[in-house]
């Protein structure tokens, strides 16, 4: 068993027809000749041109000199001190405050870093027992605060009015409706807030005919209902995957946003092989998801087959028979999974993402039967409370005219509802409609009153994340605009004149704190207590549909009796964009999808087989006609028209390896056009297809004309034949074989003898002694990394990385200092692939053999590899810089002095890891790049400790030298040594799964010191001899064979 598997970056590499192109790309950057002749070939024009080369140089020289002389006079700079300086603000020193995000989709206890009173960065709150980790969206949420398109004040029919006017007008209207026949409706996001619940209960009591409808844009309603039926409480079962040795998931992307997400930390804990053990993860799914990518065994199957598979799984475990047809290999996998679960007993756990009460009931039942340790119903998750049926009833009631007033908060139904048109009609029939929103979004155009809502970093609030675990939200900045919280508005309607802060404090002191100090809870941002019974009655509709069956075995039978016809669509939230409320956030728009590595777009993911059948497949045989790639590497796609119940959308298509045949996928969150800068108006809105809140739909797909230009950050280059980028082995080999077998050190030729590359003899450089002082290293555990991308956004925020836009990304000019490469692999070994490739002779043979190698594309294994500057001790970039702009520090960091750089880009060419980024343009204060750095508000997020780079200089990961320097300075000021594990980088601090660990290897108490000597550790491309300071931990898969 060898770790050297065949990895490939794109399907093209396996395609038999275009081997010449791939080969060409391996040897040259561009397949096409660069058309030098076009502009230099025409001698005549050159000679007759009025401007000679000499003249040109003269002009350039003169104008440069003139420009630099003109710039000699320095501007007068002003320093404006506070009149009265707040005592906790010291200019130049960051303050951290604990708060919480609860925007209806993402819930987390976090720390916010502020400088001079400006929030600039989100950090994880390590005190939190649950939801203390931020994902990419939460990391990016700080930029939403500085969104230049936020609503600046309350409006009535598009005209600005004052809050007093708005409140009095609404109060008059509501008092007319009070106790009347028509209902007053509060349509809100999930708040999971005890104080808000209390407030709404008081509001209901005051006005009598109040209905509170909770609406989640992406619904978990069926899981909530199933839990309610079984445990009498509307919540979601909680899972701790670190306690499970066998994890079976049927369509639940629990490393993504399934049931609110946030399970990656506990999952990753169980995935690191300690004492020869790690969890075993079987995954049944249709789309390729983060969880499927991490699974030890991934079974692609259609959504309808997922239902049967789950039912059969239940049948096996409960010992009843369930009918239904599955393909043989799936049937076998289901049997095996059931056996594994039974064998694991209480160490097994089953999760499912099928939006069906029966399916969810089965999941609860199986976990109960297993008495799974990972399964927790006593402290269930409270962060999803939406009720589909109540929403549907609301829309019906609005249209029948029985709704008098509707007050919305945190929802955007005109964008997110599948029946948005009906909702809009209904809105016209209500006497009062008001929406609390941060943006002039789609819904804002349809309501009478738009109430400007504050960002969560400007708000007070509380949240009960799981039962008994609370978070407090406190403002980190005074409101930037004339905004008011929904809760304060309710309070004034209730006749309370104090602030919402006072209300929360009062509520906490009497109901939650149980004698503990309020200030301490606020300081920590989290509090563990006992849940309070909320008197509020949220509008729910009795589960009356016949699909819900009380008996679980009947449920299984009902689940299995699905009929599938045609193509099945699975709608899902994309890792970066979520439900779409942060669509105006350029960081998230430019955040690459973990699989297709596409930015600024959503797309229809189709399996290769289906794409060919449907005519959605772009021929790759010729790169330069209508083809999947441009000469520059840019990816192209065809368009497809997807129709559900008469609703059609036109979407670009990406061929996704691992997509189950017969199924397609499309992401929510894109296609917004209101309250967004024009650059952000990308993609296609998938919500109109979300009929009846079911993410699985039967669809018809047909090809249409046109070619879509994607902006991908990977697929531009081939793997260049380097198979040792990701080292991978299986648990059995890992446990039984020597390190040399599965993690060998590369050998190079020295005097025609194979010599290990780490031998000093092969090195042409003298070794520099780094044993004194700090020596920074970073370890990235490929087993723990889930590809979530929180590090990517954290790096963006910390290091002022510019956003370049779709066009520039397509030109491969992305600026991410940290990227997460995704590699697909075939299950064949690298040697076999190599041998096969070497044996190819002639076209006929290549047709056959490449054809065979294509098969794994149907269900590839996936590995994620975060790549940043490797900070090589023998850095190839440093030696080629003509101006010594990049140099090495004693502490191991590869420094980059921007002001020295003249932009030759030699370093980028010489970097084997391709991590250097060139500023092709000035990305700040430039109207061509109209993102956050182009407006005064957006620039407030800039980290003042890091230079904002200008045009023409190279930049790259600095290993957050501003953070390591800060840590050192703190220690110096305190006169102490740096504590173990005190050093952090933005990415290591953001990594909730513990995959990225940073530290000082000269401090033997640091975690990194032991990780460095771990037998899984390897350095990337060690055969090059660059001696990187970043190491990777070999990927180990649990093949579950004894």
């Amino acid at each position, binding site marked *: 068993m060898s770790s050297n598997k065949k990895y490939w970056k794109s399907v093209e590499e396996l395609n038999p027809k275009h081997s010449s192109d791939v080969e060409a790309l391996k040897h040259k950057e561009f397949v096409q000749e660069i058309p030098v002749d076009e502009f230099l070939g025409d001698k005549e024009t050159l000679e007759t041109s009025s401007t000679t080369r000499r003249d040109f140089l003269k002009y350039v020289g003169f104008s440069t000199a003139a420009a630099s002389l003109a710039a000699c006079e320095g501007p007068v700079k002003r320093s404006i001190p506070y009149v009265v300086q707040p005592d906790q603000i010291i200019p130049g020193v960051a303050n951290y405050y604990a708060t919480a995000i609860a925007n209806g989709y993402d819930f987390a206890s976090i720390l916010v870093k502020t400088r*001079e009173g400006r929030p600039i960065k989100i950090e994880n709150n390590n005190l939190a027992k649950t939801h203390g980790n931020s994902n990419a969206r939460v990391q990016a949420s700080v930029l939403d605060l500085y969104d230049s398109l936020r609503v600046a004040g309350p409006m009535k029919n598009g005209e600005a009015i004052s809050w007093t006017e708005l409140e009095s007008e609404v109060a008059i209207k509501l008092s007319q409706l009070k106790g009347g026949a028509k209902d007053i409706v509060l349509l809100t996001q999930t708040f999971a807030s005890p104080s808000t619940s209390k407030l709404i209960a008081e509001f209901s009591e005051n006005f009598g005919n109040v209905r509170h409808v909770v609406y989640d844009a992406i619904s978990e309603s069926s899981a909530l209902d199933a839990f309610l039926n079984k445990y009498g409480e509307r919540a979601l079962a909680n899972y701790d995957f670190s306690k499970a040795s066998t994890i079976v998931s049927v369509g639940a992307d629990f490393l993504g946003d399934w049931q609110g997400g946030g399970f990656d930390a506990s999952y990753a804990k169980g995935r690191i092989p300690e004492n020869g053990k790690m969890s075993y993860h079987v995954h049944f799914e249709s789309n390729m998801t983060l969880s499927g990518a991490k699974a030890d065994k991934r079974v692609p199957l259609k959504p309808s087959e997922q239902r049967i598979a789950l039912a059969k799984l239940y049948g096996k475990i409960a010992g009843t028979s369930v009918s239904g047809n599955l393909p043989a290999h799936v049937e076998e996998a289901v049997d095996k999974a059931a056996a594994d679960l039974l064998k694991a007993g209480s160490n097994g756990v089953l999760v499912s993402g099928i939006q069906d009460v029966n399916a969810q009931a089965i999941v609860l039942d199986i976990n109960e039967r297993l008495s799974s340790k990972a399964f927790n119903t006593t402290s269930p998750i409270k962060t999803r409370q939406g009720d589909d049926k109540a929403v549907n009833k609301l829309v019906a009631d609005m249209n029948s005219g029985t709704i008098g007033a509707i007050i919305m908060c945190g929802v955007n139904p005109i964008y997110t509802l599948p029946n948005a048109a009906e909702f809009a009609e209904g809105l016209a029939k209500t006497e009062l409609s008001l929406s609390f929103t941060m943006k002039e979004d789609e819904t804002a155009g349809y309501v009478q009153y738009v109430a400007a809502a504050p960002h969560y970093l400007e708000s007070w609030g509380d949240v009960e994340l799981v039962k008994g675990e609370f978070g407090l939200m406190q403002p980190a900045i005074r409101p930037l605009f004339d905004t008011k919280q929904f809760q304060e508005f309710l309070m004034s309607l209730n006749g309370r004149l104090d602030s919402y802060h006072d209300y929360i404090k009062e509520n906490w002191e009497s109901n939650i704190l149980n004698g503990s100090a309020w200030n301490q809870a606020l300081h920590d941002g989290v509090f563990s207590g006992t849940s309070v019974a909320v008197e509020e009655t949220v509008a729910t509709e009795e589960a009356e549909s016949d699909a819900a069956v009380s008996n679980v075995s009947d449920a299984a039978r009902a689940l299995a009796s699905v009929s599938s016809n045609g193509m099945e669509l699975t709608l899902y939230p994309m890792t970066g964009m979520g439900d779409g409320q942060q669509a105006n956030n350029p960081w998230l728009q430019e955040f690459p999808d973990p699989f297709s590595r596409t930015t600024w777009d959503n797309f229809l993911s189709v399996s290769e087989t289906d794409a060919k059948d449907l005519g959605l497949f772009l021929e790759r045989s010729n790169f330069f006609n209508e083809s999947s790639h441009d000469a520059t590497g840019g990816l192209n796609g065809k368009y497809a028209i997807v129709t559900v119940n008469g609703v059609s959308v036109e979407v670009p298509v990406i061929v996704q390896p691992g997509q189950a045949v017969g199924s397609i996928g499309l992401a929510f969150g894109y296609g917004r056009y209101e309250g967004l800068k024009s650059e952000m108006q990308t993609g296609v809105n998938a919500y109109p297809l979300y009929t009846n809140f079911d993410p699985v739909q039967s669809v018809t797909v047909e090809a249409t004309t046109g070619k879509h230009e994607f902006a991908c950050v990977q697929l531009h280059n081939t793997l260049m034949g380097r198979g040792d980028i990701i080292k991978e082995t299986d648990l059995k080999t890992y446990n039984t074989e020597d390190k040399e077998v599965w993690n060998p050190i590369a050998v190079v030729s020295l005097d025609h003898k194979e010599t290990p590359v780490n031998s000093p003899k092969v090195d042409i450089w003298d070794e520099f002694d780094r044993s004194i002082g700090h020596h920074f290293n970073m370890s990235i555990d490929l087993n723990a990394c889930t590809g979530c991308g929180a590090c990517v956004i954290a790096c963006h925020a910390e290091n002022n990385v510019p956003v370049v836009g779709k066009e520039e990304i397509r030109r491969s000019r992305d600026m991410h200092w940290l990227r997460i490469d995704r590699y697909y692999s075939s299950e064949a070994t690298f040697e076999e692939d190599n041998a096969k490739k070497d044996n190819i002779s002639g076209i006929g043979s290549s047709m056959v053999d490449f054809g065979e190698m294509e098969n794994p594309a149907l269900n590839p294994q996936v590995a994620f590899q975060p790549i940043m500057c490797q900070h090589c001790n023998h850095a190839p970039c440093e030696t080629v810089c003509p101006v010594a702009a990049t140099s090495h520090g004693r502490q191991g960091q590869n420094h980059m002095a921007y002001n020295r750089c003249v932009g030759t880009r030699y370093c980028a060419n010489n970097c084997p890891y391709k991590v250097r980024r060139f500023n092709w343009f000035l990305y700040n204060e430039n109207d061509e790049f109209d993102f956050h750095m182009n407006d005064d508000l957006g620039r407030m997020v800039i980290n003042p400790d890091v230079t904002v780079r200008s045009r023409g200089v190279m930049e790259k990961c600095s290993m957050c030298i501003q953070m390591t320097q800060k840590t050192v300075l703190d220690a110096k000021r305190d006169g102490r040594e740096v504590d173990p594990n005190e050093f952090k980088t933005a990415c290591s601090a953001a990594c909730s799964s513990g995959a990225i660990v940073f530290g000082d290897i000269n401090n033997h108490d640091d975690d990194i010191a032991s990780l460095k000597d771990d037998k899984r550790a390897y350095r990337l491309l060690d055969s090059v001899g660059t001696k990187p300071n970043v190491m990777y931990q070999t990927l180990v898969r649990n093949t579950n064979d004894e």
Partner: protein
Amino acid sequence: MLLLREIFITEYFSFMKKSYQCLEDNSTNYMKQLTGRFLNSRILLSSLFFLITFSTSVYAQDGDPVKGKALFNTNCAACHTLDKDLTGPALRGVEARLNDEQGLDREWISAWIRNSSAVIKSGDPYAVKIFAEWKNTAMTAMPQLTDADINDILAYTATEKAVPTAAATGTGVSTDASSDSGISNQLILAALVILFVLLAIGLFMVNKTLRRFAKANNVDFVEKEPGKNLWQAFVQNQFLMLVTAIFLLLGSGYFVFGWMMQLGIDQGYQPVQPIHFSHKIHAGDNKIDCKYCHSSARVSKTSGIPALNVCMNCHKSIYEYNGETTAEYNKEFYDAEINKLYAAAGWDDANQEYTGETQAVKWVRIHNLPDFAYFNHSQHVSVAGIECQTCHGPVEEMEIMYQFSPLTMGWCINCHRETNVQVKDNGYYTKIHEELSKKYGVDQLTAAQMGGMECGKCHY
């Protein structure tokens, strides 16, 4: 810009606000926690009661006014002056006044000073009256003052007001001195010029006379051939031309380079500031520690321009300038500058209260490092223990602040090369310094040897 300075509200803040309210109610236990902090600046009132008792000098004379002045400045000056009502009333001749007008004796004054609240509580009619008159603000209790101390203070308050003396003596002297040296230099120069002229004339005369002698004695005097013009010879000598050209080019290159190198260097930059703030008066004459005002230099990367509330700490009671003056910078000038501060801070000096109408002072920034250079004050001030003057020059002598150092990278690096790391009593350096000094074979490492010359330490 404005947003940048927005303050955010936190729970802590409202907590402070609350406790502050409580303080005024004199009610809850917050009072106890925070008394010391708040009372200092707000309460002192009572010295009025001094007024009440004795007739002046008789009693006061037994104290030492010099000691009294020191005590007064330490304990009383935050709220009182001799001649102007501040937070508390003016105190000159207070004892005599109280004695004459109210018939209150020194015993009463002592009681008031030590604990005015008790006197008020006891129902003393004058005490109650004066308490009401001064916005119900009680004076800080001073139980630590002994009878002798109080005597000294009262002796000081009893001193007569000094007649303002004419200043400008110092300036006159210095002008004289400078003109003296100027004249002497010029004299020497003039003498030299005359000497040289005389010499030249002398030589010419000698030459002339010699020629005449030669002619008279028929000495064969060879008249020089009207040879080639020096310039032509020079032009025709290609080697000389080449050498000269090279020298000229090198020379002009040298000067152009020198001129280019000073571009963007603002050494000596001395802009006019919106308020004429004299570092000489504050740091020099009054010996205020730099870090009293620039407090963030200890903990932050910026030294911080002090907020106006820091100025008002002192200037609430220092409403006029009484130090040395010159013709240009006279008392009226300085007093006007103090009034500018009051206008900016929104301080109504006449009524001794804040109006709430503030305006920001837009100081002109003198020391500008480019954005790509990271400099941290606390590293240099707290860790390395470097004096502010090392980089900022003799600030305590600067009437108008200017940039003393060039602030170029060469200047930074030079200092890093020459300065030893301050390792004493700093646990951070113990191990690393020992190992590294052994490696380099030195007793004391310089900042550069410690890594202070790596690019990335300042450029990121």
